[in-house]
């Protein structure tokens, strides 16, 4: 269900079978997160539920969380953006290379700016060049931006960034001593939570956000209702690129460097988080809260397996299974709701 204001899920369901699907659709992610949390807690009761570990999970997944907002936005309009990993790297390299010669305020904005430009190019390509599918345009951008990231840096990493540029990715808010040590909260965790709250409001309570749902649900209906679909899509891809640039800034801050291979394959992880979070690949369905849940599920799996010293390869198998299960729930729901 897409509208936040409705509490009458039972009202629109017509049978018991459908009830289960609607419930799973709405709360499935919460159940998955709870079960994962309990499992990890049971296996590592001393470590898992500590402030340090929980903020670590959020901190380590902040780049994914930021990318997932943009990815959700494009998937909501029945699109896709394969280029976010490369655009992240390009933004990161541009800011790392420029940080040597430019004042820090320039370095600070250059990443998100480069990302926005790349996203804008994606959006214009998709709408004005009438590409058969956003897959094609963003696949092209995936290669082009990765190549550019290497060109601007000569293919080598740059390290050593000014402190204000590192702030977002690495600063911590001290919280004093308790629970057995000095505790702190990474700034980026606060930033990510603020982004999610802000974008939640955009998706649920602004005309722009609701129009994205209508474009994803039926672009032809949106068009004949007088909505400028192309303009909306260009904005959506620009925001997705902006998010990739922001993620590049965070990653640069955390690692105090820029490296041209950054974010390889991360677009697929962002897509996975969005899909696990219950957004429909067909467009028009999903919530940002669900997407945040999707990011958490992936982060929890990672954390739980790490705490138990399980190989990363099992992690990939597990995520693969969860993606397939999440999408089959989506397909099943569509089948139920179209059978009238």
């Amino acid at each position, binding site marked *: 269900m897409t509208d936040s*204001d409705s509490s*009458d899920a039972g009202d629109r369901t017509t049978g018991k079978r459908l009830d289960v699907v609607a419930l799973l659709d709405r709360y499935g992610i919460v159940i998955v997160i709870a079960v994962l949390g309990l499992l990890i807690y049971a296996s590592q009761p001393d470590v898992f539920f500590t402030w340090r570990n929980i903020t670590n999970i959020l901190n380590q997944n902040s780049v994914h969380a930021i990318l997932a907002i943009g990815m959700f936005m494009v998937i909501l309009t029945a699109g896709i953006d394969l280029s976010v990993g490369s655009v992240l790297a390009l933004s990161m390299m541009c800011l790392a290379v420029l940080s040597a010669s430019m004042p820090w305020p320039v370095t600070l904005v250059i990443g998100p700016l480069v990302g926005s430009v790349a996203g804008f190019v994606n959006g214009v390509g998709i709408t004005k060049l009438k590409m058969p599918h956003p897959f094609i345009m963003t696949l092209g951008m995936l290669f082009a931006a990765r190549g550019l990231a290497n060109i601007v840096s000569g293919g080598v990493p740059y390290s050593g960034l000014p402190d204000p540029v590192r702030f977002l990715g690495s600063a911590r808010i001290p919280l004093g001593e308790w629970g057995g040590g000095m505790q702190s909260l990474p700034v980026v965790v606060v930033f990510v939570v603020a982004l999610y709250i802000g974008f939640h409001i955009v998706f649920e309570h602004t*005309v722009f956000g609701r129009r994205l*749902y209508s474009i994803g*649900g039926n672009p032809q209906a*949106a068009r004949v*209702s007088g909505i400028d679909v192309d303009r909306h899509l260009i904005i959506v891809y620009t925001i997705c690129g902006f998010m990739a640039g922001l993620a590049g800034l965070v990653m640069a801050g955390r690692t105090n460097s820029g490296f041209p291979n950054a974010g390889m394959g991360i677009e697929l992880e962002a897509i996975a988080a969005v899909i696990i979070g219950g957004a429909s690949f067909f467009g028009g369905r999903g919530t940002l809260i669900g997407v945040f849940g999707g990011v958490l599920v992936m982060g929890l799996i990672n954390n739980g397996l790490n705490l138990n010293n399980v190989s990363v390869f099992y992690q990939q198998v597990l995520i693969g299974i969860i993606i397939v299960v999440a999408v089959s729930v989506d397909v099943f729901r569509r089948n139920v709701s*179209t059978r009238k």
Partner: protein
Amino acid sequence: MNEMDRPPVVLEARGISKYFGAVTALEDVSFSLRKGEVIGIVGDNGAGKSTLMKVLSGLYRPSEGKLLFEGNEVNFSTPSDARRLGIEMVYQDLALAENMNIAENIFLGTEPRRTFLGGLISFYDHRQARARASEHLETLKIHVKSVEQAVGDLSGGQRQAVAIARATAFDAKVVIMDEPTAALAIREVGKVLDLIKDLKKRGISVILISHRMDDIFYVCDRVLALFHGKNFAQADLGDTSRSEVIGWIMGTLNHKGTLAHDRL
């Protein structure tokens, strides 16, 4: 009726042609529509009915010819241009977003909003959308459980009603309906036709495309036939008969009712 007594012409098409590459969908089609009039458009599959309506509603630009609205020439480049003048269309495929609720569909493209920072931020006014949608459905005597029901969960007739509600939510002067009854069960057909009569009573002009003679002869004042993309014939309803209109669809004038399909 004397020409002087007739209500004024709202919408007029003069010599409209529409080409899609080598395909001629419309050729030199003219017609006019008066205030509060219900005109039926008939024609075989592919005769050009939907194309003509899409020209009138601003979705297609005519290749040749012109449109006059209340006597003034108009050029629509998008459907919103037409909507601004009060020309609304209910599409053959309804053009509803099934993932969204009834109220959101009714106000698609014309969302009630609260704006901030000089229009930079527009918040969707969900409360007003719900209230106005309920009120509007009430005046149209359309009954739904809740305006927050997803349109994907509605029956065909209810969807049709929502599409009509959207077309009439603002001060519509002309409502174009492309085969609104084609996919409906008998009981729901009656409701839609009564809705059309209601619109007429309120002074709204309606263009109704239908293949069903029952629809045409129940609600229309006048019927116009297209054949192979051209004007073929037209008449006030009192001056013609079902079998004659069926003949027009088949491309025969002065048809006397001897073909097999008359008995279907």
